[in-house]
């Protein structure tokens, strides 16, 4: 949560997350560089620089695959939510590893070129008409560019400056980046070498990413199809108060497809927008901690009655009007502007 921008926000969990990540990357690259030459055919010795390019390239592909798997995994099973917590650092590290791969490639293949290296790379093959011999490097450059856009806009400043909606749209570049990375690996290394390791990486990782996105997308569709209808005055039925577990929320999908999170804390019930002010995380899947609605993604907190983060924080979300009649809760489909104080419903006694 922001009060004043600092270069990188770290806390104990993020240090741990980043530490594990750096250790895993180092281990992968060390093992690759150590085992690679030993396991490869000796009839065709390969330069160390090429091994480095392969180690960093496959590592970046694996990392990008994991990043893309985390989102749908967390949607399908909340136990994966902690992985989502620090995904931005993961993304920046992936960009660094992919850049190292690009640098090794440029330095090796175009070391003796008379034209500048990048120009030599772009001009060395411009025949896009065949799959075999396709200039797969171009696909790699597109993937790297997509990763650069995301890494360069990963600071919280960008989220606030662009707004979560535009920021997310920009970060959809990861999809383009991944598809081009799969193409780059297929038409490049896989067509050229076709080793078992590459096959496992390509079919295993990319196949898993595609499948997970398909499953998570289908789940989202089922939720969206389940929207509640409003009456003529704009009131939408939610459920009986007792159906909302204590300190938890219930998500209602309005006919406009907006989502509202209705929370119960003991005898108090309030409704807020389901989209967190940070990255539009699903607040209704969070819980109440210390009297605040706490986002399941990165832990931003909001007071129930006015949707404001407690001081010194300044984030705000829209609130909604609630009504209780005949043991049924209704929410009004028109949102109040973010931070509007809205009297919550107070029950006579906590539901059993």
């Amino acid at each position, binding site marked *: 949560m922001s009060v004043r921008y600092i270069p990188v926000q770290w806390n104990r969990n993020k240090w741990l997350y980043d530490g594990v990540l750096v250790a895993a990357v180092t281990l992968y690259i060390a093992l690759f560089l150590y085992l690679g030459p030993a396991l490869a055919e000796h009839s065709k010795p390969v330069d160390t620089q090429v091994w480095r390019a392969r180690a960093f390239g496959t590592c970046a592909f694996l990392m990008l695959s994991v990043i893309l798997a985390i989102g749908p995994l967390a949607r399908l099973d909340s136990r994966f939510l902690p992985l989502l917590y620090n995904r931005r650092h993961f993304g920046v590290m992936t960009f660094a590893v992919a850049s190292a791969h690009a640098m090794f490639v440029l330095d090796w293949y175009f070391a003796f070129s008379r034209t500048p290296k990048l120009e030599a790379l772009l001009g060395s093959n411009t025949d896009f008409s065949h799959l075999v011999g396709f200039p797969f490097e171009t696909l790699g450059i597109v993937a790297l560019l997509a990763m650069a856009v995301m890494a360069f806009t990963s600071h919280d400043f960008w989220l606030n400056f662009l*707004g979560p909606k535009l920021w997310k749209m920009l970060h959809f570049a990861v*999809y383009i980046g991944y598809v081009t990375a799969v193409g780059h690996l297929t038409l490049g290394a896989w067509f050229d070498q076709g080793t078992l390791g590459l096959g496992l990486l390509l079919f295993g990782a990319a196949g898993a*990413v595609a499948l997970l996105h398909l499953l998570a997308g289908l789940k989202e569709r089922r939720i969206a199809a389940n929207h509640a209808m409003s009456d003529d005055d704009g009131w939408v039925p939610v459920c009986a108060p007792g159906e909302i577990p204590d300190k938890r929320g219930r998500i209602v999908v309005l006919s406009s497809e907006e989502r509202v999170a209705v929370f119960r804390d003991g005898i108090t019930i309030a409704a807020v927008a389901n989209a967190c002010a940070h990255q539009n995380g699903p607040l209704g899947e969070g819980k109440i901690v210390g009297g605040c609605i706490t986002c399941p993604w990165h832990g931003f907190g909001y007071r129930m009655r006015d949707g404001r983060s407690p001081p010194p924080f300044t984030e705000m979300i829209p609130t909604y009007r609630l009504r209780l009649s005949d043991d049924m809760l209704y929410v009004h489909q028109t949102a109040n502007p973010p931070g509007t104080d809205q009297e919550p419903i107070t029950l006579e006694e906590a539901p059993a």
Partner: protein
Amino acid sequence: MSPAGLITTVEIWLAIGAVVALLFVTFGIDRIEPNAKNGYVFRVLILPGLCLLWPLVLWRWRLAESGGEDWRNRHSPQRKSAGLLGFGMAAAIAVILLIAATQRPVPVDSTAPAPEKIGATAEWRLI
């Protein structure tokens, strides 16, 4: 466009971006972003993004100065497009994997006897 022309275009783009970025971090950001107050080191971190995305920066800067953004925009996630893009990506990957499985050329310059087809060899090299 020739590779040299492409590189020059990118260089011009980034040069304009550098001017916009410098103006923004020294002057603009303090006018529109209260959280930037007394925070200076983070400005260095955002420079590459400002250079790369300068048209977007100019647009948002103007919008923030005029206070013209509708608050609803900040609280309505792009669920539909995210879903469609997810499906689109899954489909594109499936097509590429199909190409990977069926179109890989048989190696021609191997000293070992080349397998007829992919998978025809009993021994797969791991790396």
